[in-house]
């Protein structure tokens, strides 16, 4: 990618969506269309309210800390980050303040690229904090929805060690699946559950160049494009001998124009006046609890993928598609549990199901056709009741009408596998095609497919092809 060394560091904020309540508030942690419905007095900063730490959030944070090979703190505690903004009615955010102890410090994660090469991302820290309210800026007014205020947020900070936009996206995508696999978050960018800041610099030697921060990039596509744009912008300035114009500053990604726009210089950085939150006593992290958490880490996507390849003989490509979304992978495993052959199940999931989901921009959780229904269809195909072509038709009928597959597999359209029935049909056809029969017998054997076609035509495709061929050979040879 060009002549300069590119160095990228990422800050990935992921909302924890799988807890019942918020991180320091007993309000429900649940996305709601009804604004300001999941709130308690503390979420609006009413006088006399106090934060109460949600232990489940700490457990999940420590699990992520383990997954990222981080060092865990002896005590969990929190700090106040003080600044005035209407999305945070207390006007301070309860967070952690690395390099002071936080839930995870100094870890790493190995990432496999699409071409199967790997790279390591250093993790500076991962820390737990509360999210702010969401704001909507209209023409002459702004609205605030406090439902999001106090929602647990995990902020992961990588070391400046990523070398390209593609690697950055590979890392983020893998992190997203980890959050899903660990049942910590849906990690849905469409719901705004993941937000990224990107730090980027270029250099023509070993030293790091001037770091530019791009704030609040809300999609992985955006991360990719923002990095590419920023490398180009900085490189062009450097090429032109104007690298001193690259300033240590904060910019934002403007999706519409596909550019980054200056927000403020680092010189104007806010002094957050951090200090330890006095209302949350230090919480001792016991060895036993950490061990328990460590043991409860589920199988992660790369492990699953290896299993699929070695145990079931799936291709790397197929296995990669399966594990990319935990729910799809779970669907596949349910199919195996029901006794569907791994390769057949994989084929159905990867081709038909994933294809359908992508086309309809759907999540598999909302997918009507259950693994049990899929098994029913495949069983009928295997027993010869329906052809593979019919199986596909039934599959789409089920989705279209949202009715059980048995409604579409009936006697009427069932495959004809009854040998005597087929025999009489074949005899009839041979009788009506005497010329072709003679030609065949004189050596024009490629007419065999013609007879098969006639049988299919006669039965409107319902004849069992295997039995049909068997019978034809018997009659003709």
């Amino acid at each position: 990618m060009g002549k300069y060394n590119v160095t990228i560091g990422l800050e990935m904020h992921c909302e924890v969506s799988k807890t019942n309540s918020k991180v320091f508030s007993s309000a429900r942690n649940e996305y709601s269309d009804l604004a300001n419905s999941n709130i308690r007095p503390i979420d609006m900063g009413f006088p006399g309210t106090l934060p109460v730490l949600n232990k489940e959030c700490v457990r999940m944070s420590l699990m992520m800390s383990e997954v990222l090979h981080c060092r865990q703190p002896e005590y969990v505690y929190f700090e106040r980050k003080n600044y005035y903004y209407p999305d945070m009615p207390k006007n301070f955010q309860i967070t952690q303040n690395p390099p002071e102890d936080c839930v995870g410090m100094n870890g790493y994660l190995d990432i496999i690229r699409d071409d199967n090469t790997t790279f390591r991302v250093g993790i500076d820290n991962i820390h737990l904090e509360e999210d702010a309210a969401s704001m909507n800026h209209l023409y002459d007014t702004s609205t605030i929805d406090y439902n999001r205020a106090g929602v647990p947020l995990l902020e992961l900070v990588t070391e400046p060690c990523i070398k390209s936009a593609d690697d950055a996206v590979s890392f983020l995508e893998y992190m997203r699946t980890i959050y899903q696999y660990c049942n910590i978050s849906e990690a849905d960018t469409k719901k705004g559950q993941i937000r990224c800041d990107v730090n980027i610099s270029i250099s023509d030697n070993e030293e790091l160049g001037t770091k530019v921060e791009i704030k609040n990039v809300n999609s992985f596509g955006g991360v990719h494009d923002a990095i590419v744009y920023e490398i180009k912008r900085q490189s062009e300035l450097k090429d032109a001998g104007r690298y001193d114009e690259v300033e240590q500053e904060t910019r934002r990604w403007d999706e519409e124009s596909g550019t980054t726009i200056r927000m403020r210089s680092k010189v104007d950085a806010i002094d957050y006046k951090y200090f330890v939150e006095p209302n949350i006593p230090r919480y001792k992290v016991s060895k036993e609890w950490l061990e328990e958490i460590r043991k409860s880490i589920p199988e992660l996507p790369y492990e699953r993928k290896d299993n699929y390849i070695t145990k079931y003989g799936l291709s790397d490509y197929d296995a990669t598609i399966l594990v990319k979304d935990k729910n799809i992978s779970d669907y596949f495993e349910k199919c195996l549990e029901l006794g569907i052959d791994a390769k057949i199940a994989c084929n159905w999931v990867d081709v038909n199901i994933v294809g359908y989901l992508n086309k309809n921009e759907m999540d598999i959780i909302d997918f009507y056709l259950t693994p049990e229904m899929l098994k029913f269809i495949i069983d009928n195909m295997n027993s010869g009741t329906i052809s593979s072509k019919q199986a596909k038709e039934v599959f789409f009928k089920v989705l279209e009408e949202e009715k059980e597959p048995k409604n579409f597999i009936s006697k009427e359209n069932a495959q004809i596998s009854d040998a005597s029935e087929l025999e009489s049909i074949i005899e009839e056809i041979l009788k009506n095609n005497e010329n072709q029969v003679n030609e065949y017998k004189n050596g024009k054997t490629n007419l065999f497919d013609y007879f098969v076609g006639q049988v299919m035509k006669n039965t409107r495709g319902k004849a069992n092809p295997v039995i049909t061929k068997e019978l034809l050979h018997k009659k003709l040879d």
Partner: protein
Amino acid sequence: MKYMNLSITELHEKLKNGEVTSEELVKESLELSHKVQDKCNAFVTILDDAKGGNVTDDLLSGIPYGVKDNYSLKGVLSTGSSNTLKDYVPFFTATAVANLAKHGAIVVNKTAMDEFGMGGTGTTGHTGIQKNPWDVTRMCAGSSSGSAAAVASGVYPYALGSDTGDSIRKPAAYCGIVGYKPTYGMISRYGLFAFASSLDHCGVLTRSVRDAAIVVDGMKGIDKYDMTTWDSSNIHLNDNLTNDVKGKKLFYIKELCDIENYKDATDELKTHLENFKETIKKCESLGITVEGVSIDSKLLNAIPSTYVVVSCAEATSNMSNLTGLIFGPRGEGSNYIEMMKDHRTKGFSPLIKRRFIIGSYVLQSENQDRYFKNAQRVRRLIVDKVKELFKEYDGLIMPVGTGVAKHLDGSKDILKSDTAALEDHLQIGNFGGFPSITIPNGFIDNLPVGINITGNCYDDQNVLNIAYALEGTMNYKGQIAGGDK
């Protein structure tokens, strides 16, 4: 017949035997409230529609009391004596008040205070100054000024206070009554407007040690809304109150109690320290050993500044929620920043603004280590030193302040810098979260003075027992300002 000058146990007996009804007590308390309002300006709100309640076997049932205005009370104006919350009516009740309600206690007024508890004079609240019922030209001290004035005037047997530096224990001394803040976390702070969270305590002002024990028994308890609370269900302060304190050991800080250490000491200070010595003798007559202990003067002299730095820093952050946007009177301006500035500029008294500036300054990244972190280190050193002494002693006994209540017209008081540590040593109790109680121990020129006993964390019973026994050797229990008891 007047009842409100009686103790809780006396009132309970009269309620039980039908001599008086709860309704009559509430009526009397409300009438007295209006009188004391005229005399001392002790209240922000008098709940004229308060009703009597059921009388059960619970000592607190049916008896009226007052609540400091920084406790949230559902449906009742709760201002913290600040213009920033002058119309604020909470929609939830502070846990401590809710606990007392479960015991059948009846709130009859909200007492005035220094704005948000940030003051020691009772002169900075938005409804004006509180006057000392013993001498209305003098202050009550603060910040629980209204509660102290009301209890000392006999409006009811007790009122709630809060204590961040000495805000219960100093007004108690100036008003000749008892002020007790138990160990940090024994009473939930949920619903109490925060001043400095690591120093804030709930507590009570009463006219006897037993009443203080009864009320705190009713207020305390672990609370799922306050993580700093702890389970005290096995502690029954009133049931275990005893005056058998033989063999207990107390210490006082030698340097602070020796009149020789104050150049040009006033007669008042001399009398105050003489009186303290007399009280020590009374302790000894109870079989308590009392010893003078030296503490490094560097540490003692650092107490006031350590307190200022820690409390102002936490306060400036805690009170950032007061913007007038979600609650409180909305400021004027064309955007939220201007509105917020307008609200805070108009709403806060100059004293508070000064403290916010100090708090902000000591937290700035370039100053934080020098001021805030150092203050935390010194706090730790002071607490460690006192805890070390608590291994050997049951408690610290000290005179409260340098004498009697100061004049409201400050020009009449002579202030000397060498008495700063004597004036402010009660802050040690907040640094360590120690249980600490002030009881009256005499008069100087017809004005009350007090003595304080502070013990180790979770050792509330011991502290109360010593105070209870000592109270029994003196004649000030249950006294009413200007009263005949």
